[in-house]
């Protein structure tokens, strides 16, 4: 699977990006508004100042006179440590102040305050100017009052506010990133829970998912459930198919066997009888192989996802012995069971299958008129069933190899078998965390097969 990154990280980054953008925007807005507010304040003070000075303009003996009220300058001191410049001109003549102070054009007409921004002696200044018409003698003279102030104070105030805004923006950003991470995690939690619910399941648990999920996940859950439905159906179909196939193969085999038995009763020639016996044996062999192959498949399938239940090996052994007693009786073999309770945890169907295969082997390879001994024991942390027969033993070669598929002992000639019995038993035990021990019986005679399981 190729990863396309994490949804959670992407969501967090997206939300953080939005937060960063908002932070920068709000910082810029606050900075701009702060500067505007500071400038407006300065303008208002400058306007009040020029107005105060202009109020003092009067005509005295044909001369324009004025006073510079203290308040006109003190109010300007309210804005930082800025320097103040002023000039009052009547026509082209400077009445007082800095003659070289730039005066904005009197576009506003008489009585209206005009503002301008300029440079004076190397410093940025804000200028307010008002023109009044004063009657000097008989002729009206336009008198312009101009007050200017450097802008350091405004800059400082704006910078202070901007810094504060920046701190707030950064704080907002940090909080927003944290919240986005939490939001991303919270909104992805149902997905995680769904994943956990699916991965907790065993391979054969194909029940549909039934859990509350947000509407965005509903299509995914629906799709998953449909997939599991289809899987379940095809699994059941293949099981049915195997069962049907077994039926189709075994029913005619049964007929062949039956006919051969009937024929065997009516023929008298020994050679013919021998041929019919071989035919029956071949039929038995193939039907037995088919059965054990299916069993083997079932064991492999169930062992993947072992259903566990408490099982008493003593009960299990008693049931299996009862089931195989008629088979043993046909050979006059006595099944002798000594059992103490031995609790294990496992799949009773598979455990029964394992013991049945081992016991079936013991009966098959035992001579007539003998005893097959089953002993159920509980030793330390292990529960055991030992099956001992009085047969010919395991023969030459390593005993371990007998649990390999289709491997049969060196001394099994003439006995129907598929070579899967011990393989099945061993696979069952291994799936349960146990093992199959093969050895000789008492005094080195016969075979002792021990099923070993961990006690529960």
């Amino acid at each position: 699977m190729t990863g396309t990154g994490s949804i959670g990280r992407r969501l967090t980054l997206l939300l953080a990006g939005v937060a960063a953008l908002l932070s920068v925007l709000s910082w810029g807005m606050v900075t701009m508004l702060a500067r505007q507010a500071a400038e407006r304040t300065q303008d208002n003070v400058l306007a009040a100042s020029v107005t105060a000075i202009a109020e003092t303009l009067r005509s005295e003996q044909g001369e324009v006179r004025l006073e510079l009220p203290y308040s006109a300058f003190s109010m300007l001191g309210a804005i930082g440590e800025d320097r103040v410049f002023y000039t009052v001109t009547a026509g082209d003549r400077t009445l007082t102040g800095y003659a070289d102070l730039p005066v904005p054009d009197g576009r506003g007409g008489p009585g209206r305050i005009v503002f301008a921004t300029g440079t004076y002696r190397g410093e940025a200044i804000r200028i307010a100017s008002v023109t009044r018409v004063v009657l000097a003698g008989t002729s009206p003279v336009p008198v312009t009052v101009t007050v200017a102030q450097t802008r350091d104070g405004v800059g400082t105030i704006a910078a202070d506010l901007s810094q504060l805004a920046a701190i707030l923006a950064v704080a907002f950003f940090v909080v927003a990133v944290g919240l986005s991470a939490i939001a991303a995690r919270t909104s992805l939690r149902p997905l995680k829970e769904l994943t956990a619910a699916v991965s907790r399941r065993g391979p054969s648990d194909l029940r549909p998912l039934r859990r509350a999920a947000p509407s965005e996940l509903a299509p995914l859950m629906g799709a998953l459930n449909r997939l599991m439905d289809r899987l379940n159906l095809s699994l059941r179909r293949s099981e049915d198919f195997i069962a049907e196939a077994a039926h189709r193969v075994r029913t005619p085999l049964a007929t062949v066997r039956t006919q051969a038995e009937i024929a065997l009763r009516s023929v008298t020639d020994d050679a013919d009888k021998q041929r019919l016996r071989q035919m029956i044996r071949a039929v038995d062999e193939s039907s037995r192989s088919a059965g054990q192959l299916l069993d083997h498949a079932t064991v492999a399938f169930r062992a993947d996802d072992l259903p566990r239940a408490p099982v008493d090996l003593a009960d299990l052994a008693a049931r299996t012995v009862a089931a195989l007693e008629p088979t043993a009786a046909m050979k006059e073999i006595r099944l002798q069971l000594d059992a103490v309770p031995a609790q294990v945890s496992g799949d009773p169907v598979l455990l029964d299958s394992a013991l049945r295969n081992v016991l079936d082997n013991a009966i098959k390879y035992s001579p007539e008129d003998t005893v097959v001994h089953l002993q159920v024991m509980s030793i330390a942390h292990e529960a055991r069933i030992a099956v001992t027969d009085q047969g010919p033993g395991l023969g030459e070669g390593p005993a371990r190899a007998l649990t390999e598929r289709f491997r049969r002992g060196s001394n099994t000639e003439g006995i129907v078998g598929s070579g899967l019995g011990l393989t099945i038993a061993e696979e069952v035990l291994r799936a349960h965390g146990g093992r199959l021990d093969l050895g000789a019986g008492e005094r080195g005679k016969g075979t002792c097969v021990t099923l070993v399981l961990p006690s529960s």
Partner: protein
Amino acid sequence: MRYLLVEDNRELAEAVIGRLALDGHAVDHAGTLAEAEDCLAVATYDLILLDVMLPDGDGRDFLARSRASLETPVIVLTARAQVSDRVGALDQGADDYITKPFDFSELEARCRAVLRRRGGSARNQIALGAALFDPLAGTLSHGATSVDLRNREIRLLEVFARHPGQILSKGQLMDRLFSYDSDVTENAIEVYVGRLRRRIDGMGVRIETLRGLGYRMETDTA
């Protein structure tokens, strides 16, 4: 004993019926579940042999349906060999199962085991002269003495008991005593007849050897 065989394969059914008839059992045959229900409505059986896959349904479903009202023991004949199928059959109330193809000796052995478990031996006793033979329990009693017979001795005595006064060849006896996959010679029959003779000694029953023909059981009529 009266058996009901529910099996759709005609050849197999005929062979089973023929074989069971040899042991003196009466067998009714039903090819479908519907026929089986008709049979059960009018007759009482000692044992039902039930195939799993039938043209009109699954034998196990039939078993699950009728188990509550059915006292008769059931042995399921199945071509399905999977462990889960076998366990399933027993869960649904079958007394035993046997997988096809089966050995007739094994079918007989399983029938006998199920009948014995269900305690159906009382009505099945056979009088052999003054002795009483119970083939299910495997006992032969005469007055106060009673002997327990072993499996092959029981079957051998049962064959003789079902065919009183008839001559039975070694070949016939072998068919009943041994499954076909075992390599036994006719000498084995002599061994078992010898053993049985010792067991029934003094019970008022004798097995005579007819040289070249076989054996015949005689009872003391006195």
